[in-house]
Structure formats: structure tokens, C-alpha cells
């Protein structure tokens, strides 16, 4: 509900998201590997979850009643690490260790190394199934936990994604929210030229999801959709968030080439310069 969302909250989330994006650039540049494009597209969704929606507490990582976040598109790990670091779950300096030998910050998120990660993912089509299991567990224990799974759109080409979504719909898991980072691009090009997934919202609806379509970079729409999901009590919710791959960095936006390619020095400098500009302080 945009009209009831305080402007300060929106400004604060936007500002945090800019910081997350800067960290994504620094991490992928320092590692000279990683997935900047899909990390930047999912940043606003993750920021809204980690800084507003999720009931989580950096001081109690194993709090049983916490909400669960499963990054099914585990390659967007830089954005999740950055958001969790800014929220206090790990030291911000540790972000520099991303993808390095001995680091807790694996290329794809690893719960056994970093306790604030709920599920290790990376190979696609599995995180959403684990989220369904977590939501079933919460229902069995009559717990307050809500489970949020973030899917990539390339991942929606994988059959098991739909197996898991089918199970979430079948069991009417109203504590489950599947959020699609619909940036339209995968490694080799556009999803629609490679293996089209549209009409995607209709697919979620056919799988018994209360489905909401939003602009995944508009915080008032993101918060409004998350509110609506919480008020949905007869089954799971799907949020189809239209996003831009590489969002926030002019030369990465809409480029599948930056799916799994890090920026070089000049590109990183330019990206950081662009991301340090704020609406309040134009260049």
C-alpha cells in the first residue's frame, strides 16, 4: 500500500540498496568472478526482505521462530551476503573474502559455512523445494515462521522448480512466498529466445498461487506485495517481480554478458561512481 508506506522507509531502503549494489561490484571485482547481473537485479527484493519484511535477528541466528529466506538462485550470493552484512549478520570486511579459498562466502551460498544462510543452493531448481519443506515444517509445528524463496527466471525452465511449486500449491502453504526475479536474461541470452517461460504469471496462478505482478525495483510496490502475501491465508503467494539485469549500472543493465562475468578495474570504478550518486546528491 504505497499511500501508507512512510517516505522515510522507502528512502532508507533505496539508500541501503545502493550500498548493497556497491558491495556487489566490489565483491565480484575483487574475486574476478561471480554473477553481478543477477545480483543487481535481485538487490531491491533482497533489501526489502532483509531490512523490512523478515523477522530475523543478527544476535539470534538460530532463533527457531525466525522467518526463512531461501535464495534458490544461489548464484546471486553477492547481493545476499552484502545485505546480510549490512544488517549485521557478518562483518562487512568479510565480504572481501568472497570466492577465496577458506572463505565462508562461497561462490554459491553455503549454510554449513555461514550460519545465517538457511539453505545451500547453487544447482537450480532445488531451493524452492527446500523452502516448501521448511513451510511444511512450520505448519506441522503451528509456528509463526514464514518462508520466502527467491527464484531466477532461467530456473523456471527447470522441471523440478514446477514440481516444488506444485507441492506448495497442493499443500496450500499460505506461509510460503515464491518471489521471481524476472530479469528476462540467462547466461546465453533472453529467456524468451532460449526457452520461453511466458506467460509466467498465469503459470503461477495455474499452480494455485495468489500471484502479484510488480516492478521489482519499486520499493512501494515490493512492500505492498509482501503485505498482500501476508494477508493471503488460503494458499501460497507468488510475486512476479519485473526487474532489470545489472540494475543500477548503466553498462550492465539488460546485458546477459554480465550474468557470470565480473567487472574489470575500469568497469568497477565506473559502476561504483554511478552507484554513489544519490537522488539527493546528483553528480
Amino acid at each position, binding site marked *: 500500500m504505497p499511500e501508507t508506506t512512510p517516505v522515510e522507509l522507502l528512502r532508507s531502503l533505496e539508500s541501503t540498496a545502493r550500498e548493497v549494489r556497491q558491495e556487489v561490484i566490489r565483491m565480484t571485482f575483487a574475486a574476478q568472478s561471480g554473477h553481478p547481473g543477477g545480483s543487481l537485479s535481485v538487490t531491491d527484493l533482497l533489501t526489502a526482505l532483509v531490512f523490512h519484511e523478515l523477522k530475523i535477528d543478527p544476535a539470534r541466528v538460530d532463533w527457531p521462530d525466525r522467518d526463512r529466506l*531461501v535464495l534458490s538462485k544461489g548464484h546471486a550470493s553477492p547481493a545476499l551476503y552484502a545485505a546480510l552484512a549490512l544488517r549485521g549478520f557478518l562483518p562487512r570486511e568479510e565480504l572481501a573474502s568472497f570466492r577465496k579459498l577458506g572463505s565462508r562466502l562461497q561462490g554459491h551460498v*553455503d*549454510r*554449513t559455512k555461514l550460519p545465517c544462510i*538457511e*539453505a*545451500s*543452493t*547453487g*544447482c537450480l*531448481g*532445488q*531451493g*524452492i*523445494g*527446500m*523452502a*516448501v*519443506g*521448511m*513451510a*511444511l*515444517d*512450520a505448519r*506441522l*509445528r503451528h509456528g509463526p515462521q514464514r518462508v520466502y524463496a527467491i527464484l531466477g527466471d532461467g530456473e523456471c525452465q527447470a522441471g*523440478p522448480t514446477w*514440481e*516444488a511449486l*506444485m*507441492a506448495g500449491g497442493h499443500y496450500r502453504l499460505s506461509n510460503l512466498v515464491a518471489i521471481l526475479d524476472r530479469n528476462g536474461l540467462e547466461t546465453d541470452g533472453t529467456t524468451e529466445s532460449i526457452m520461453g517461460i511466458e506467460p509466467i504469471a498465469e503459470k503461477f496462478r495455474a499452480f494455485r498461487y495468489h500471484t502479484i505482478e510488480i516492478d521489482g525495483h519499486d520499493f512501494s510496490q515490493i512492500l505492498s506485495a509482501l503485505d498482500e502475501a501476508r494477508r493471503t491465508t488460503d494458499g501460497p503467494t507468488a510475486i512476479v517481480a519485473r526487474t532489470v539485469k545489472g540494475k543500477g549500472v548503466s553498462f550492465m543493465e539488460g546485458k546477459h554478458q554480465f550474468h557470470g562475468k565480473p567487472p574489470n578495474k575500469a568497469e568497477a570504478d565506473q559502476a561504483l561512481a554511478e552507484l554513489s550518486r544519490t537522488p539527493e546528491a546528483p553528480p
Partner: protein
Amino acid sequence: MSAVLGKAESLRDAYGKALVELGEKDPTLVAMDADLSGSTRTILFGQKFPDRFFNVGVMEPTMMSIAAGLALQGRTVYASTFAVFAAGQAYNFVRQSICYNKANVKIVATHGGLLVGADGGTHQIVEDIGLMRGLPGMTVIVPADAPTTRAATFAVADRYGPAYVRLTRENLPTVTDGSFQIGKAAELRGGTDLTIVAVGSLVARGLEVAAELAQVGISVRVLDFASVKPFDAPALLRAARDTGAILVLEEHSVLTGVGALVASTTSENYPVPVRRVGVPDVFGESGDPWALMDRYGMSKERIRDEAWELLRARGKVH
């Protein structure tokens, strides 16, 4: 039936009944199946605890990730289907969702091996032990009879982490006293001239051949290696030292199964002649279950021939 063997019983029934007992002991335990609950016998659990039983239909890969999600919240989860689906269809889901996540999921797979019979080669997986044994952190158990199945069903619950228990469709004669322990081989027969290392359905044939050889003065030790991983290397190496030759029997591909494990373990630590009886590098076919075992190189005659071959190589007979 030979005098050395007990009554043939269903391993699957033993599993289903043990699972119900576990469900009574642990009110948080959950069981899952993928539309084969009548065959795997998880239906017994489902009838007793309908709220804690999830039959997800024909989605074996996702059954594994849902099981992992449930387990990561602190539950022990049993997930059952046929071995070809559990280890084959769902392999990378077992690998990442369960093993990489160190999720406490016990996969009890029925219908492993050629004894599936009439359904044919599509369903007769003879690669599953190799696939599952290769996964870091996975416990792999291949029971030879109903008492070991019952004991293994309980034992994997007491050991945190992923487990794969491979059961067979056919009833098998009782050959153990059910005193199975994870990580321990069971000596079912003492002997000094030769050791038979066997798993699953072929333990009984190993005992029968050992009994026959005893009648001509050959003393054969028979070890049931139901605990494939962790593997009782000390028991194997003791047998290598004591008897000087090892014959491995398994209803599995000889390329990646227990024979390969025995050969590598002995050759690195105490090299002795090892011969493997199992399925060669081929798929199975439809047929009577035990006729298939004979056809694909696991007949009693073949086991006897391989035993004599090893005894000759060791100079025990001429």
C-alpha cells in the same frame, strides 16, 4: 532351502514396521514417498501418522529437496521410493539438497538391483551403491535380510546425517541375528582358507557355497558388509591376512560397487587376490528374478567356480 539359511522374509515389511515404531518414539519424525508407498511399505507409517506423512507423487528429485527442507528444521526425515528413482532420477538433489546441506534425511530405497525382475532393465539399477557411496557424508547400508533391515532402519536414525539404505524387492532368507551396527562387518561364518565378502541378496548364496566347501574340507569365512559406508576396513584387512584371498559377491555393477571398494582397500593396505562376482557392465532385462541373477553372472555355480579359482591361486587346492 539350505539348512544354513533361515526363513525368507520381506525386507520392505521389516522397514515399514520399524518406521512405524520410530514414528511412535519420535513425534517429530516425518516420512515421505513418491507414489510407491504400498511397495516401499511407508504406507504403514502413513496410515498411523497421516499428518506426518507426505506422499508427493511422481516427483522424486523434489521429494529430496522437500525432505531436506523439513530436516533442516530439526526433524529426522525418511524418504522412500525405488532405488532407480532415489539414486538415479534424484541424484543431484540427493547430492546438493541433502548431502551438501548435511540434512538429516534417511533415504530407504527399495527395489535395488536385478531382483526387480519382470519390470526389466529400466528399473533394475545396479549403479546406486557406487553413486551413493561417492557422496561425502553419506552413510550407505545394504541389508541382507529382514532383521538387518530392521536394525539398520533404527541405526540410521541414531546417526545424524544423510543415509542411503538399499533394500531388495524379493523376500530374502534370514542370515543374521539382527545385531547390525553401522561401520561393522558381521562374521557370519569363521574360516581360514578364503573369505567371502558379500552384501544384500548374495550373502545367502555366499553362505550356501561356504557350507558346500566345508564338506570337502575347505574353510571359508563369510563377512556380511551391510555397512558399505562407513566400511569396516579392519575386518577386511584381518580377513586378507588370515585367509589370503577374497571373493566379493554383490548384486551391483562390478565397476563401482563393493568389489571395487574391496580391491582398492586391499591393494593399498594388504594386497591379496580379489575376485568379484556381480553384474558386468550391462543393463538387465525382464525375467524371473533369480533366473536373472543366474543369467547375469551371480549363480551359485559361478560363485563356486570363482572360489575354486582363488583357492587354486593360493595353492590351497590343485
